[in-house]
């Protein structure tokens, strides 16, 4: 027994257990996503996670570190899972591999490994793809119920690895909805329609929308919300970042909606579309690249919420969580510096 220094007792949750808990809390969201979008995402998650894990192991071996012990912290796995969730289900396999290798090799380990990366590895990998392959990265197929060509496991594998389903349909064909139009995500649809002069209500009548937000997407977001709430309940993460982000996004969209109810997306649509909940509870909460003070985390979250709204409303991309997270990562040091808590026995600083 080697008891170096007090304290000699510690709470039970360790870093690798935290990471594992986060992964487990993704499962409801992943399952709902698989239900609506088929097996593609499961393939992507497996692919990305395996690549991330493998990349980390190789780098650890290169750096002469205990590879099994370090990869055992599950942080690379988590990066892979989040990346796999975020990319479109039938993205060509090599793109996912590129993103995963970039995320772990460059964004994480070139900066010194766990605890030292400035940027969220999963989102950096995602953005790399988004910038390099914008069409592929925004090519989500319609939810299964709307799809003209429903795809099974084998079809999905074929699509990911060859670009064509077992029946010989290309990705573009698979993406056709029953009415013969290539599907766009709800956020994309709203953006295009509003741009074309349609009102929100008119746009919302389209089949890509469900009962209160995007068809399928609303349930996926709810599932991630559920997982996130459990994380907070288990004190794996705190309210600050998700709270800050969701409140900020709600406030921004509510203000916009109050001024122009027809011309902007509703707060509900913002909160339950795209990667909002995934981003709020699983991505922005990556502690390494987020702010570290409690006040700073609220600010950090709020900044992401604001940026998401700005990018969705005026930006060139339909969703903006990944960009918002990376931009906020850049502000972390500054926010941390100005959000130091007042130490016991000290006067309020400046």
């Amino acid at each position, binding site marked *: *027994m*080697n*008891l*170096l*220094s*007090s*304290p*000699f*007792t*510690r*709470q039970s*949750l*360790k*870093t*690798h*257990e*935290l990471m594992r808990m986060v992964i487990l809390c993704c499962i409801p969201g992943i399952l709902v996503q698989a239900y609506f979008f088929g097996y593609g995402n499961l393939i992507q998650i497996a692919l990305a996670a395996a690549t991330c894990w493998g990349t980390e192991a190789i780098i650890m071996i290169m750096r002469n570190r205990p590879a099994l*012990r370090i990869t055992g*912290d599950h*942080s690379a796995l988590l990066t892979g899972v989040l990346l796999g969730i975020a990319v479109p289900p039938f993205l060509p396999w090599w793109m996912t591999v590129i993103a995963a290798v970039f995320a772990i090799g460059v964004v994480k380990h070139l900066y010194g*490994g*766990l*605890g*030292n990366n400035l940027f969220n590895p999963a989102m950096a990998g995602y953005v790399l793809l988004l910038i390099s392959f914008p069409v592929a990265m925004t090519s989500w197929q319609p939810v299964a119920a709307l799809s003209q060509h429903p795809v099974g496991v084998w079809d999905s594998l074929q699509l990911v690895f060859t670009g064509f389903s077992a029946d010989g349909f290309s990705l573009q064909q698979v993406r056709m909805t029953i009415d013969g139009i290539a599907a766009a995500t709800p956020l994309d649809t709203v953006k295009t329609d509003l741009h074309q002069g349609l009102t929100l209500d008119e746009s919302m009548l389209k089949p890509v929308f469900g009962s209160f937000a995007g068809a399928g997407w609303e349930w996926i977001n709810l599932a991630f919300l559920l997982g996130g709430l459990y994380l907070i309940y288990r004190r794996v993460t*705190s309210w600050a970042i998700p709270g800050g982000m969701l409140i900020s996004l709600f406030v921004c969209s509510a203000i916009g909606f109050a001024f122009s109810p027809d011309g902007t997306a509703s707060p509900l649509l913002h909160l339950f579309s795209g990667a909002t909940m995934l981003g709020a509870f699983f991505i922005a909460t990556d*502690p*390494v690249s*987020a702010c*570290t*003070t*409690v006040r700073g*985390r609220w600010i950090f979250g709020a900044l992401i919420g604001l940026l998401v709204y700005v990018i969705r409303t005026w930006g060139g991309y339909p969703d903006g969580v990944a960009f918002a997270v990376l931009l906020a990562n850049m502000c972390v040091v500054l926010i*941390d510096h100005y959000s*130091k*808590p*007042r*130490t*016991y*026995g*000290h006067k309020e600083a400046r």
Partner: protein
Amino acid sequence: MIDVKKLLTSDQLWDYAGGVFPEYRKEQSRQLPIQPAWIPPFVRVPIRQHIGQSGNLIVKVGDHVLKGQLLTEPTHGMAVPVHAPTSGIVEAIGQTPSNHPSGLNEISLTIRTDGLDTWCERKPVADASTLSDNDLLQLIRYAGISGMGGAGFPTEIKLTPVNPIELLLINGAECEPYISADDTLMQALAEQVVAGIELMARLLNNPVVIIAIEADKPKAIAAMEQACADWEQVRVRTIPAKYPSGGERQLIQIITGQEVPSNGIPADLGVVVHNVGTAYAVARAVYQDEPLIARVVTITGNRVLKPANHWVLLGTPIDALLHHHGLDQLDPVIVGGPMMGYQLPHAEAPVIKTTNCLIIPSQDELPSADRQMPCIRCGSCAEACPANLLPQQLHWYALAEDQDKLNEHNLFDCIECGACAYVCPSEIPLVLEYRQAKAMIRSSRQEQLKAERAKQRFEARNERLEQEKQARAEKHKKAAEARLKAMADKPSSSASESSPDSATKQSAAVAAALARAKAKKASQQPQKTMIDAAGQTVPDNSDVAAMREARKAEARAKKAQKQSSSASGNGASDKSAAVAAAVARAKAKRQAQASSTEPDAQQPLAATASNAADDKAARVAAAVARAKAKRDAAQHSDAKPAVTAPSEEQPAADDKAARVAADVARAKAKRQAQQATDTDQKPQPTSAAEPAQDKAARIAQAVAKAKAKRAQQAAQDDSEQ
């Protein structure tokens, strides 16, 4: 300031930032009764068991001591005495392992107990009101009481604060897991604890008294409430069980809502905090006249068969104590609680005044942190920190040894409670890092202080040297002026008159010194005149130069005066000195007057030379004369000093000097050859080499070397031209 009256009525409690909720694990040990003390075969009483200095030993080896007998006398304010915990014989006084995380040795008394437990004479006080405050304080001091909850600060000092105290806060929180010593003490002996509190309150001019106890000790709360039911100024407050509520600063915040200033002490707020154990010790000291010789110690942990609280004599070796309780394998033993305690480095260390708990955990009870991971900045530590610090940032800066940032993040406000490390999912030993960082900063502050002092010393020295230099320069200037004046006043023939005088009447030593000085001055002259001769235009600053030379010469003469004392008895050197003096003076005069030669300056020189009895001197003089004659013939006055300069090197004894002289001569000859196409003087200087006194020789050697160098330079200059 704090509204203390309101504290007696209001139910408000405040909360401090952070805090953690570790498993308390107190149930196994908190049952009554407190087990009676066991008398070990020997006790080891360290003479210092608190924060401050030790007293002076007043017993010696072989003395028989009685229970309660004073072993050390407190000599200064921060000293607290120690007492014999039982009767026995002082077997040894020496260095033994201390009950401290460092495990360093410390001075302790080893007392072989006799098992009789015989008390020394006691004078219990039945009614404390008969004692004056001062008597009471002395009694507390001589009872060896220091804080029993934490660091062990002398109690008497905390009872005589500088500021008026409005609130006496009695700390019965006992927030550390495992420990139940205060809990059982309050349960069993509430009356005496309250009696002690009353004495403390009296010494502090009856402030409001709040007794704070954590909510997980209902029996202790009930007992204390009952014990102080008929006392109006006191109130027992139940505070939520949270770690570290028992920290002094945290407790003050919970009860009053105020924060103790960072660099201040609780007394700045009009608050003083004492532990319940200390209060009990005070009552015991006054009413039983029993000094602090035993305390309640919780012995617990999964390896202990019957965890319980025990009275333990201070000085009982921990290994013996645990053996007595049926424990053989003693690694590890944790002293104090699991949050702030330390692993005992040596099991033979004794129980001391601050030892409140001994934990002997099983293998899996307090698992060691063996899987440290990188910090992921999760911020759990910041949420747990009761001082509202940012432990994750401190960790970062501690690793980088960035002292500025550590100070900026208020490292020194860390109370080392361990809450951050407790919650750290990466199992980083944060408290250890902070302790090391603090030590690093402290030592570098010491270094800075030392460097600052050294700098001040150095600057003071420089200033002093500068002042001395200026004073010297001033003196020299005056002397030179006086000298110049004297020279101007005297007629030019005075040199010829004074030279025989000095040879016969004046002290030879003084003459020699003066001569050497002047000779030097004279020898320096040729350089300039040579240049003149070579056709270079040199401003006519010979007067100024003479002044400067005179000043230098004076200094050198003084020095030489001291050195030449050994040569004074030598007749031969006296004579030669006299000759040289004459030569030099003559030259000085000549040069001081003008760069052009005056014939009358050479006449006395020749005369002096002929007067000299010694062969060598005669030869030199002859040579000089010859040289001058030649030079006169050649119309070059400048060449002469170059020859006389080597003639000063007569004492040069060894070959080296001779060689140097030869070199000099050669160089000069070259010059002269260029100037006057005359080489007659060359052999003369070599003949000047003669054995002489060692000292004189060495001085001369140095002079010769210097001159040789100069001459060589001059020669080079010339040859270049």
